[in-house]
């Protein structure tokens, strides 16, 4: 692969007119893909842009039109640009055409393939060898926090530390969603003020009365009825994918903490008020090791396995198990985009 760019590097190159003939994106963060798209559009002379800027969709591509766009020379301009969204869906015939094109691209055409999904197909690897990569992976950790703070700053507000933590917890968020939440939260405070945790919870539709830690305390204390009420309240919050992600994350943290402190007894795990069997301990060990690396889907699976064991051995009250099953099922649905 000739090189690799960050989105910012690509934007600068596009502004300066110093672009490679072909770019491919890696990572499918929608907001970053949009930024790339805008940069490509801006790289084409405004007065002739209608003639020199083509956008296609990989899953709805007319071969003739696409080939014409690729082979065309710029109309009264230095450069033309062709963008293919959802490029991973390009069919075999055009994929082969693209592979050949990549070996000898039109110098005056800027071709950008935006991949939203998997880019492991053989033809993509071949084209990528001839192309410059643009990293559109969603930022994580400190980079993500910096991005959130910068976005908040651009909106004229600040962000409280707890609110920032809440936004970065849970499953990997989409920047486009986070930006939307920040915009909504910024409307609830005056310019220059700070978005606090309650403000963010309000935006996410989370009831302030719902306290995840209280839920755990009630569960571990064997207060099943109260814990069940908390679950019902939490379910409202879980309608929001970010809320579900956050809850799962905190569940995982809590369980991991219990494992670290070797308090994997009935007092510290939320759904066990009975003696651990050897098999349950073994399962718990597996879950905990998975939780350490935070693969949340595996954590879900692990939790479900534990519940299965509880159910078959009848070591747990059916009421609590049923509540947990509903909760986990709900989270699984949320993770699939709220279907069902």
């Amino acid at each position, binding site marked *: 692969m000739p090189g690799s760019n960050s989105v910012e590097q690509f934007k600068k190159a596009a502004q300066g007119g110093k672009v490679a003939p072909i770019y491919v994106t890696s990572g499918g963060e929608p907001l970053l893909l949009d930024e790339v798209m805008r940069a490509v559009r801006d790289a084409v002379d405004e*007065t*002739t*842009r*209608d*003639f*020199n800027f*083509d*956008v296609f969709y990989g899953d709805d591509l*007319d*071969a*003739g*039109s696409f*080939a*014409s*766009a*690729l*082979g*065309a*020379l710029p*109309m*009264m301009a230095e450069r033309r640009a062709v963008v293919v969204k959802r490029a991973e869906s390009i069919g075999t*015939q*055009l994929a082969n*055409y693209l592979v050949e094109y990549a070996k*000898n691209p*039109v110098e*005056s*055409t800027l071709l950008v393939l935006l991949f939203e999904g998997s880019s492991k197909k053989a033809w993509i690897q071949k084209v990528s060898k001839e192309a410059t990569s643009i990293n559109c992976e969603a930022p994580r950790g400190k980079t993500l926090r910096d991005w959130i703070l910068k976005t908040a700053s651009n909106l004229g507000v600040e962000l409280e530390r707890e609110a920032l933590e809440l936004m970065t917890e849970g499953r990997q968020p989409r920047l486009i969603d986070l930006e939307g939440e920040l915009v909504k939260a910024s409307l609830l405070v005056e310019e220059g003020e700070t978005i606090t945790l309650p403000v963010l919870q309000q935006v996410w539709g989370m009831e302030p009365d719902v306290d995840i830690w209280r839920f755990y305390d009630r569960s571990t204390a064997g207060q099943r009825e109260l814990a069940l009420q908390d679950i019902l309240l939490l379910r409202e919050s879980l309608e929001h994918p970010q809320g579900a992600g956050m809850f799962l994350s905190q569940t995982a943290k809590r369980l991991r903490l219990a494992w670290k402190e070797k308090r994997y007894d009935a007092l510290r795990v939320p759904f066990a008020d009975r003696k651990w069997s050897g098999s349950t301990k073994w399962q718990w060990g597996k879950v905990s090791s998975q939780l350490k690396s935070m693969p949340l889907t595996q954590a879900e699976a692990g939790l479900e396995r534990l519940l299965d064991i509880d159910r078959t051995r009848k070591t747990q009250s059916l009421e609590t198990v049923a509540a947990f099953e509903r909760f986990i099922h709900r989270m699984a649905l949320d993770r699939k985009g709220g279907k069902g």
Partner: protein
Amino acid sequence: MRFTVTQADLMEALGRVSPAVPTKSTLPILSNVLLQLEENRLKMVATDLEVSVVTEVDVQGEVSGSVSVPAKKIGDIVRELDGLTLTINVDESHHLLIDAGEGEYQVPGIAAQEYPSLPEIDSAATLRFTAEDLNSMIARTSFAVSRDELRPALTGVFFQIRPTEVRSVATDGHRLVRIIDQKFRAEGESRELILPVKALDMIRRNLPEKGDVELVVGGNQIMVRLEHATLYSRLIEGRYPHYESVIPQENHNKMIVNVATLIRAVKRAQIFANPINRQIVFHLSQEKVEISAEDVELGGKGREAVDAIYEGEAQTIGYNATYVLDLLKQVPTEDVQFDLGGSTQAGIVRPTQQKEGEDFLMLVMPVRLS
């Protein structure tokens, strides 16, 4: 509702409105055609909410009323009742019953009230074209309209109405057509319209051979009164690109060649072109143009020389065969003139002789030689 009509009259009327019925729609009612009977006049309406067509047919009316019925179903059955007189009755359940002598057919309908109402044209201005000019203008421009729904402005023909001329322009970004008709006269302010290609196609189908046609423009709608139908169309909103900026002014290499001969040569060459990019190559020299194509993948190739008058530097230019053929088919004269720049610049194609008061120009972009 009850009336009697000949199959031929009903079929003709259905044929006028049915092109407006969308082939796919999220609104099932749009698959229907609206029938409204008032005394001895049956009014028929079809719409896709962008383009609506209204026509009327003489019938022997007995009981006035209205209903909407599936356009395809009624079209299919009426077509098969050739030469018969049909008695049509609509019951209270909106079933349309066709009595055709030996046969009886029932088509399920929907209450007319559920059918979309026709657009209203307000603060209207009227433009008048001769049917012949409008027909010719639509025919020569609509082929170059873009099918790209991401660029809606390019999916229609752009009309620039001036007091002493009308310009019609179409482009898909790879080719462009511009017709300036200086015989046209219009009262009132200059205006610019983008008409959807579907509406233009339907106007053209229903144009009379002679006489004038009125286009009534109001708001974002246009109404066209045609010989046997009235058409309503939404105008495409948005800014049409500044097309003049892409028309080269100084293409000094000129080629004149016989249109029919060139079309035949291009058609033969394109058989050997790459099936995806349809690329053919013009090799230009003083007394001829050689047209060649090669499909590297499958191994076939073709080359043919055509007599031409060429003034300019010898050069090689690549084109999409489909685009070249589309342009050549619009040339009304025996010979065609190409005004060419270099192999990377837009080529201008015109008839060797313009019609009086008209400037007809087409532009085609070359492609990179592979």
